[in-house]
Each structure stands twice: as C-alpha cells, then as structure tokens.
C-alpha cells in the first residue's frame, strides 16, 4: 500500500471530501502540516474550523487571505517543519464579491449585481455557492502559483454529490440562458414561444409574486455582461479539478453510514472522471492483530493479576465492548476497500484525546504518513 506521501508526490492540489462529522477539517490541517514538515510550501483552505484548532494555527483574525502559520508555534510544540504552512478561512460571500468585481465590465454593472437582492441571497445562502466559491478560491491560488501544494477542506454538504455539481449548477443558474429573453415582455420570445411559456410565467408569478420575478429578471440582466467570463472560468476550474496534478481524498468514519457515503462519493468521483487518490478512515478502533480469538480465561487471569474480581470483571467487559467495535470497523473497512478496489485505505485510530492543536495534528500525522511497516508496528502496539 502506498504511503500518503507517495500518493501526494508531485500533486499541486489535494481535496479532502466526505460527509459532515468525519473529521475533514482536522484531516486537512494534518495533511497540510505533514507536507509542510517535509519541506513544501503548503496552504490549507478551510471553512469554519474548530476555534481552538484555528487558534493553534494562529488563524483567529484571518480573513479571506492566506496567512503564514508562525514557525515558532511548531517549535514550541516540538514539531519540525522544513517548509512553510499557510492557512486561510474561506469567506464565500467575500470571494463571490471579488469574483463579480473581476468579471464585471465596469463599475456600474458591478454595483448592479452587488446591490441586487437575489444576488445577496445566492452569494451567502444558496446551496452550492459555498462549494463553488471554494473551487474559485482554489483556482485563484493555483493560478497565482505561490504554493507547492493546496489542501482544500470541502464544506459540509448534505450530500457529497452537491459539492461536485455546484460549479456546474451555479454557472447554469447565472447563465439564465433561456430566461433573459423571456423576461422582456415585448421580446421576440413572447411572440414565438406561445402560450406554454406565458402560462408557466404567469403561474410562477402567481405563486412567488411579481416582485420576486422582477428581481430575478433584474438579476439576469445585471449578469448578462459577465456570462461568457463565468463560463470560461468554470470550464478552467473543471479542467483543473480533473488534472492529474489534483488528488481527491475521501475522508470517512468506520461506522456503516459514513462508509456507505464514502462508497457513494467514490463512485461519483469515478463517474465524473476526477482523480481519486485514496481514502482516510478516522477514529478507527484498532485491534491488535494477535488478539483475534480472545483467551477464554481473561477474566480469571485479570482477577489473578489485579487481585480484584470486580475490577477484573469490568476490565474484561470493557475489553469485549472495544473488541466488538474493532471488529465492526475491520469489517466495514474491508468492505470499503473491496468496493473501491483501492489499496490506499489509511486508518487513523480513535485517539484518547480530542485533536485540536499542533501537537494533536502531529500525533495524527504519525498514522496518516506512516509507512507500511510503521503501520503494522503501531497496530500491534495499540489494542
């Protein structure tokens, strides 16, 4: 099985994807730290990180721009970093505003868009705009070429699919191809398209009100000068995502549901012809290999060693609970590896303490970046 360093060798972009609650933000930060430790100049783009994780990276006053994590922080925690670690928190609305400013032919069209109520809604609230802006920022940073590697922590989506389709959906939305023509009541379309369209429009108007329809029309008109620019850009973003220099890592947990979602997400990546690098399973209950087949006399042995039958019974019961979880995890991970037909399944054990500082990230990295032999040794060392 290749190590994570081998998977990421020569890559310029690493995208961590997966459902919510599986430790994506922490994993992204750990990967970025690990690659920076090896000497690369790395930037991690994250959304809404844990406050203490942000604090530990020196991120608290960060806006929509990359800042370097103070190397002294690493030294304090005894982590050696040969390269540079940069980090930024993505602000979807600010990124969208910047994009509009760049694409608008003049100030007037820019302001028309920025002031539009529909725009204000979609730029901050429309499902997909966050994902789209994450891609946009990624593209921008990649084009600037300041970093060896960009690590993207994708936004939590209800459905992993949303995130892949967001750029397409949003561009189609902005394009508003058919719509702009229809919106003008005296337009050509009103004459040629006939009753179907006018009924559809009038029913829609009846439901949402004329007001909203007028805002929509205004929105599309305001955007009309920028459609080509947006299309061209979206195409380049899509090309970048499919580039062999990009690597998608699927992050999941060992329970049945997250595993199902990882399988589903992997299938979507393959269908979209996007470069899949491997899967990272967090919070795995590690069994020691040699402990398959629990000695039957464990409670007795424990009682003898401890000289306390009650404690021995509780220790044995706890062990049996842990083993049941470890066996479930092993079964689920095996299923995952089979379904994905991949050898790159990286396990990070369920650590005793929550991870929210650089020392914690370094601890995770022992597992994320372990070689095959190190993995075997670590698995045997923990039970």
């Amino acid at each position, binding site marked *: 099985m290749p190590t994570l360093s081998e998977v990421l060798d020569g890559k310029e972009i690493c995208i961590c994807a997966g459902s919510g609650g599986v430790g994506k933000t922490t994993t992204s930060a750990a990967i970025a730290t690990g690659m920076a430790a090896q000497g690369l100049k790395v930037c991690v783009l994250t959304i809404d990180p844990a406050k203490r994780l942000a604090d530990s990276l020196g991120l608290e006053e960060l806006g929509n721009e990359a800042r370097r994590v103070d190397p002294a922080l690493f030294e304090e925690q005894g982590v050696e970093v040969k390269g540079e670690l940069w980090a930024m928190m993505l602000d979807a609305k600010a990124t969208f505003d910047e994009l509009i400013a760049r694409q608008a032919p003049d100030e007037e069209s820019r302001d028309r868009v920025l002031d539009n109520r529909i725009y204000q809604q979609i730029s901050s609230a429309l499902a997909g705009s966050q994902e789209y802006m994450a891609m946009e920022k990624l593209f921008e940073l990649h084009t600037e070429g300041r970093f060896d590697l960009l690590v993207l922590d994708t936004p939590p989506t209800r459905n992993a699919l949303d995130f892949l389709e967001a750029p397409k959906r949003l561009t189609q939305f902005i394009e508003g191809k058919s*719509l702009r023509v229809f919106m003008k009541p005296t337009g050509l379309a009103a004459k040629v398209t006939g009753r179907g369209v006018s009924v559809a429009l009038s029913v829609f108007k009846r439901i949402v009100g004329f007001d909203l329809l007028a805002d929509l029309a205004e929105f599309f008109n305001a955007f009309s000068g920028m459609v080509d620019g947006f299309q061209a850009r979206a195409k380049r973003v899509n090309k970048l995502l499919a580039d062999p220099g990009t690597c998608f890592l699927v992050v999941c947990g060992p329970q049945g549901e997250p595993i199902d979602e990882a399988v589903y997400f992997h299938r979507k990546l393959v269908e979209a012809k996007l470069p899949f690098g491997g899967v990272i399973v967090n919070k795995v209950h590690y069994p020691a290999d040699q402990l398959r087949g629990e000695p039957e006399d464990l409670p007795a042995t424990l009682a003898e060693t401890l000289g306390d039958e009650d404690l021995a019974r509780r220790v044995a019961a706890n062990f049996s609970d842990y083993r*049941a979880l470890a066996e479930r995890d092993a079964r689920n991970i095996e299923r995952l590896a089979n379904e994905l037909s991949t050898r790159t399944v990286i396990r990070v054990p369920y650590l005793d303490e929550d991870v929210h500082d650089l020392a914690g990230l370094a601890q995770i990295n022992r597992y994320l970046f372990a070689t095959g032999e190190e993995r075997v040794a670590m698995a045997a060392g923990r039970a």
Partner: protein
Amino acid sequence: MIVTGKGGVGKTTVAVALGLRAAAEGKRTIVCEVASQENASRMFDHAEVGFHEVEMEENLWSISIDPDESMREYVLLQLKVRAMRDMLFRSRIFNYLAAATPGLKELVTIGKIWELAQLDRKIKKGRKYDLVIVDAPATGHGVGFLQTPRTFANIARVGPIHSQAKQLDRLITDHEHTGTAIVALPEEMPVNESAALERDLRDEVGVAVDRVYLNGLYPERFSKAEAGRLSGLAESEKGAVKAAARAALSEHNRARSQRAQLARLRRRVEAPVKTLPFLFEPDLGPEAARRLSRRLG
C-alpha cells in the same frame, strides 16, 4: 419538534428515539427526514419510504421529504387541476425559475412539514398526527434551513408565497407548539458549534432551544485509582491482559475528557442539557433507539 445539529452527531437516532417515546405514550407520531438520506427507515431495516407516510411501528410513521415532490404537491394544491400542474412541470421555463429562486426548495420542504402538522390536512385523506418530528438537515453553516421562511418572506414582498412564508416562520417560532432540540457530541468542535447554533437560532431565527442532547457519552467505568493500577498493568503485562488494560485506560481517558466537554457545554448553552449514553454496539438498530428513548425523559 425540530431536531437539529451538525453532521454525524446522531440526529436521526435521537429523532427516532423521540418518535418511539411519543408513540409508546400513544401519540400518533411521524418522523420526517429532510435530506432524503433515508436513515430512519434504514434503522428499522425498512425499504426506502420515499415521499410517502409509512408506518414503522404502532403509532410511529416515517416520511422522506423530497423537495421536488413537495413542490409538485404544493403547486397542485395551488392550481387544483392535476393536468395543469403536469403541464407546468413539463415547462422548462417553470423548472428553471423554480430552481433559480433561492430557498424555494427549502421553503416547500418546510411547507410540507407544516402540512403534515395540520389537523385539517390539505392532501386528500391525510392522516392526523399528534406530533411531527423533523430530522433537520445538518447545519453546515449556521441556521440556513430554518431561516428560509423568514428570508423568503423578505425577498418575496407580496403574493401568496409571501404570506405562506410568514405562516411557516410563525410555525417555526411558535414556542407553544413547536419545540427545538440540538444534538451534540462530547467533543471540542461539536460543543462549540452547538453553543453557536443555539445563539444563532435565538438571534437570527427567533427560536428558543428547549433542550440539548449530548449524545454518545462514555460511561465512567473506572475510578482514578483503578486507572492508576491499570496503567501499571499496561506497562508490565503482555498479550490479552496488556491489551485489556489499555482498552480500559482508553475508556477512562475518553470518559474523563468527555466529562470536561459536558461541563463546557453546560456552561455555554442556555437550554438544559440531557446526556445520552454511548452504545457499545456495532450497528444501531431499532433496539438501540428504543433503549435511548427510555433515557430521553
């Protein structure tokens, strides 16, 4: 009853447990899933329920609310004529507008929840429910979903949808009839996010949270003194004894750090916190939900 929280904290399990409890008390209850993930029906090993009200157990029903189906139903209720509705949905322009209007999908989804909660159901032969439990979508960013009616009422200043959006906002903020619970985990990030969620729900949506469920709390199986003895064992022994001692120490450490998180949560949220135990079970089925339901109180 709205059950909310970030992804992966066990919202569905808690929603189903609440449903089981209410059903056991004789209330006709329906659990609504919103993100069409069908986790509830999976918990009962039931086939996908889709956009139908399906009985899982006595008094307990389940539905997966699909926004497109909700939209079709809503438009039919507005137009009254099925053929006209179908014509409309074949129109590209209508589909385009529906997709382009920000928040419309969320709005019709909440509209369906409202419809389910009516004693005088709008759909034909609609069943009457005593309690509707909403397994709300994971809060990615703040309170988006629950805020939709308010936002929408502001965008659409006139027309039928304006008044309907206001009505839905009233449903969400009607503290006499609608309760809200947040599900959290005893970890750093989920605790922070639950506190932020409670604040945002109050300040931005006008919803007071009734209860925070801290899910997955490890039992305190070993005392500090016992942990001391076990750590000696983990050093000196080999094989299964060493492994068992290590597992016990892990349990002890996690239980302890979780108690610290529980204390933080209690300090940081206004609503009362109720703990739910971690279940040492490989897969959580209806039995697990039933056991949790007895702990809900």
